[in-house]
């Protein structure tokens, strides 16, 4: 990931595809693990940990969406709705059956996967723009259904309070507990995605993305793999929804509206389509963007504007910067932050020995 590969010669495909490309990579991962498992949670304030938790939730969702959009090449503007499916499944199970969180998490993910696969069925016949509009319709229809069917939404407010997750007798209530809880799933999601995309299934996804007709000719069952991509991606989304519900302590459809779908698309575009590291970069970037804008405006905005203007400006500024960033990355750097990172890394790869 960040190590220099000077003087390394690979002689087999296995070596080239390995998760740890170099012996030193284990050390890099170990250092990162120390930073994220010990340094950050034990030193940062609760508020910053809650921000970190939001980032972790976004990382899982962005990884899932990238499997679908980045690796398989199928567009989805319905991921917010898939998250809400997971969230409401888990919330209903938790409140009605009092089931433990692992069951809810799995059920939420599987339910979202099933719904996602159904929404993905049109992808057999249609693609590109039509698929984008079909998934947009899926988003609006799921939103409407959750909002109007009281069996799912649990009443007028369409919000269900869920109890905190428990580990044995310990209730995970503080942000620090949630941090560890979420980080475990982030690690599983990252390793799972990295392994998925280098497996047979992941190769099939990439073949479909690059040239679907050729993929079918070499024997890939397009329909099956497209639906599988939708299901896996929606599973991630459902898990994201469940984790977000546990993080907030409440399931509410307003947290999963179309803006969320667009946020996640923005993450993978800004981060880099078809890249695990890019999904992580994008999730961090887009989650922190509104927070940085708010803090920046609250600190320095009053130099230029009066306080009331600053308050009005913050949400609008967020929208403008957000949209402008999407356009900027699409026009100027289509491979996203991941490419910028690779450029930096490649520069230092054999440094200081030129050539």
């Amino acid at each position, binding site marked *: 990931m960040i190590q220099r590969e000077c003087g390394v010669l690979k002689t087999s495909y296995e070596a080239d595809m390995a998760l740890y490309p170099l012996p030193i990579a284990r050390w890099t991962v170990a250092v990162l693990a120390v930073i994220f498992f010990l340094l950050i949670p034990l030193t940062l304030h609760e508020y910053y940990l809650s921000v970190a938790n939001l980032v972790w939730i976004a990382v899982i969702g962005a990884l899932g969406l990238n499997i679908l959009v980045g690796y398989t090449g199928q567009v989805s503007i319905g991921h917010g709705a898939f998250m809400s499916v997971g969230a409401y499944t888990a919330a209903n199970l938790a409140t009605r059956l009092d089931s433990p969180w692992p069951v809810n998490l799995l059920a939420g993910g599987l339910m979202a996967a099933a719904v996602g696969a159904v929404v993905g069925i049109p992808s057999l*016949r249609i693609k590109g723009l039509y698929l*984008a509009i079909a998934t947009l319709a899926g988003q609006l229809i799921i939103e409407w259904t959750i909002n109007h069917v009281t069996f799912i939404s649990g009443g007028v407010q369409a919000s269900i309070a869920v109890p905190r997750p428990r580990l044995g007798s310990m209730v995970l209530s503080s942000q620090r507990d949630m941090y560890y809880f979420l980080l475990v799933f982030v690690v599983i999601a990252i390793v799972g995605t990295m392994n998925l995309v280098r497996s047979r299934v992941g190769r099939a996804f990439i073949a479909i993305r690059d040239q679907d007709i050729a993929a079918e000719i070499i024997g890939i069952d397009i329909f099956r793999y497209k639906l599988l991509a939708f299901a896996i991606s929606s599973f991630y989304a459902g898990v994201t929804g469940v984790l977000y519900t546990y993080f907030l302590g409440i399931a509410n459809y307003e947290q999963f509206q179309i803006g969320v779908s667009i946020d996640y698309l923005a993450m993978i575009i800004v981060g880099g389509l078809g890249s695990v590291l890019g999904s992580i970069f994008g999730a961090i970037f887009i989650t922190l963007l509104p927070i940085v804008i708010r803090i920046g405006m609250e600190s320095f905005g009053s130099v230029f504007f009066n306080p009331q203007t600053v308050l009005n400006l913050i949400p609008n500024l967020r929208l403008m910067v957000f949209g402008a960033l*999407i356009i900027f990355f699409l026009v100027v750097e289509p491979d996203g932050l991941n490419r910028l990172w690779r450029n930096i890394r490649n520069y230092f790869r054999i440094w200081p020995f030129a050539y």
Partner: protein
Amino acid sequence: MPDELGFFFLLMSNGVLIGLMYSLIALGFVLVYKATDAVNFAQGEFVMIAGLAVALAMSAAGAPLWVAITVGLAGMIAFGFGLERVVLRPLIGRPVIAVVMATIGLASVLRGVGPTFFGAGTKTLPLPISDAPFVIGPLFIPPIQLLGAAVSVVFLSGFGWFFLWSRKGIAMRAVADNQQVAMAMGINVERYFGLAWAMTGMVSALGGIIWGNLLGVDINLSLVGFKVFPVVILGGLDSIPGAIVGGLIVGIVENIAAGYVDPYVGGGTKDFAPYVLMILALMIRPYGIFGKKLIERV
């Protein structure tokens, strides 16, 4: 029974008039798609920005109506040209998701720009027509809807003529059909891309004025953009008659649904029914009623 029938006709007439006004907005979408194969997810925001500009010109600058409308039209045409040059041209030849996301990003920018530079409050956009509806038997027809429908019909037929008979329209169809051949025939493809976006800007400005008068001008005006997709999918993405027919279908369906289903489910059917219809259309006939049949099956 006559009351029942009267209610039905009321819903129908309302649906037809609203549907034609949807067609006007959908026309902006179709124009761009037809000429450049690009999709505009910011169509609703175009309408909002145009409405805001006209309303601001009238209220703050105190300009008379025709000046405000001219300013709005000119502004949106310039905006269309500029947008094509800066954002869309670099994206030619890139995957669909790139253009989709670029216009979604643009929508976000416009949503931020609107309240920041034009003020956040809801503004009125008064037109010199009365509010009193025409009453014909059981039908109540507000004049603004009639005006909107008339403007829609005029512009839809105008653009229909433009594409069928005018020199520029034929050139634009050639560009849409095959960019490389059009280029070889001496057509300046990029200029026609710009022209298509400018025409979309103009149509959006008209939509902004009419819808702005009907709903009031604020950020929520952009929500009419969500109605564009059912309209264009039903009618066919690249077809002007399709925009009319799709608009009529969506207008009628949502009014009938709102009239007969809403009492049972507690509202909201209006926004929901067109999308169900659209999903069905996508499964049965994805290229729409009049669209060109160019769906690859893999």
